[in-house]
């Protein structure tokens, strides 16, 4: 096999080296022959070593990844995993290839820093003193972020629960009382009317469940969209 010669900094990383090998050996990026690629990759690494080039750990990591991929490919009943690993590598190579192309295009488009700007004028009179007001907790949370812990490790503030608590408050029982009160005054009400004052999905659902309960208990009847209050003796026992 042809002896490859490399120079330090020739490649941005293992993906760059792989793309180079794939192009050089006219392989199809979407149909990589892992054993061929591994062989070429290892010989490239070896050639770097022979030249006493410092090999970044990423190159060695990629070598072990390729070895693993080849092993999996050879094992029976591992077709699925090997296909998945191969696809991962191909996806990464394709992505990096796009990155390289875009980088090249950006480089071409760079105006070479040829437009000069001024340094901002130093004006003695300008008062830059910050005057906005913040809670000291802003500083506390920023500190948590800065030391990499993030605010997720903090107990959630009470208002985070407010939504849950508010929804729990709408019990079916409270809506049964609401419907009964409403009907007791008017004798009957339209179906839609019962939901008029409902605030939010939770309350609507609770009202509907309350209505089902009342119909089941025969406390109300439904007739053509009208909900009619039933004056029954059981009324007193039930409440």
């Amino acid at each position, binding site marked *: 096999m042809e002896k490859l010669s490399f120079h330090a900094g020739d490649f941005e990383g*293992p*993906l760059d080296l792989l793309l180079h090998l794939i192009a050089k050996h006219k392989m199809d990026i979407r149909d990589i022959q892992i054993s061929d690629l591994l062989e070429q990759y290892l010989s490239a690494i070896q050639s770097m070593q022979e030249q006493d080039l410092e090999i970044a750990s990423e190159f060695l990591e990629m070598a072990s990844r390729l070895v693993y991929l080849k092993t999996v490919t050879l094992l029976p009943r591992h077709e699925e995993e090997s296909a998945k690993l191969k696809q991962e590598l191909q996806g*990464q190579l394709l992505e990096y290839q*796009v990155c390289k192309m875009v980088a090249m295009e*950006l*480089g071409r488009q*760079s105006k*070479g820093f040829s437009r000069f*700007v001024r340094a901002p*004028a130093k004006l003695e009179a300008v008062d830059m003193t910050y005057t906005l007001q913040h809670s000291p907790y802003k500083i506390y949370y920023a500190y948590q972020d800065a030391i990499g812990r993030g605010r997720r490790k903090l107990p959630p503030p009470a208002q985070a629960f407010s939504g849950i608590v508010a929804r729990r408050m709408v019990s079916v029982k409270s809506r049964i009382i609401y419907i009964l009160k409403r009907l007791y005054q008017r004798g009957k009400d339209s179906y839609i009317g019962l939901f008029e004052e409902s605030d939010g999905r939770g309350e609507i659902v609770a009202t509907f469940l309350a209505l089902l309960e009342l119909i089941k208990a025969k406390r109300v009847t439904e007739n053509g969209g009208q909900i009619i209050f039933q004056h029954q003796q059981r009324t007193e026992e039930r409440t």
Partner: protein
Amino acid sequence: MINPLQKQILAILFAGGDAVEISRVAQAVETEPEMVVKWVPKLREALQESGMPFELLELDGKLQLCTAPEYAPVIQKALELRRNQPLSQAALEVLAIVAYNQPVTRSFVEQIRGVDSSGVVTSLEEKGLVEEAGRLELPGRPIAYKTTANFLRCFGLENIGQLPKLPPAKNTAEETSLETTDLEEPT
């Protein structure tokens, strides 16, 4: 001839040095941001007609006054500025990843490039081409990066939407032959 408010705008941009938000310019001269935007062509014309070697750039909601590119050599000579080294391939790759995916974390960049990129990100930050864009709601709350107004200026763009179009998306990559993934010319 430009009107007094327009003169004030030029004065602000001159003294501001960096790109100044259009909204801030408008507030200072007591007019609407829309008016300031409307005046940009007029101001460019005035600079041109009076033979000023300056350009007025609109960069993503900001305005910046800078010298026209043809004066770069004489400025470099007079101010004894080192000729700017073109950006390295590594720097361009990182810039490309940040520009097209912003806001992004350093580990996202490293995942695509397959190599540690912290040094490159720091140097791009020092060059004023990328900057911090808060932290992402991800484990460890990693710092996100975005490109700057200075990046737009250096690459002759007015906003990120003017970046060259990407080759077809990944999911169609199966059918796309490599030859067709040529980048389109920026318009």
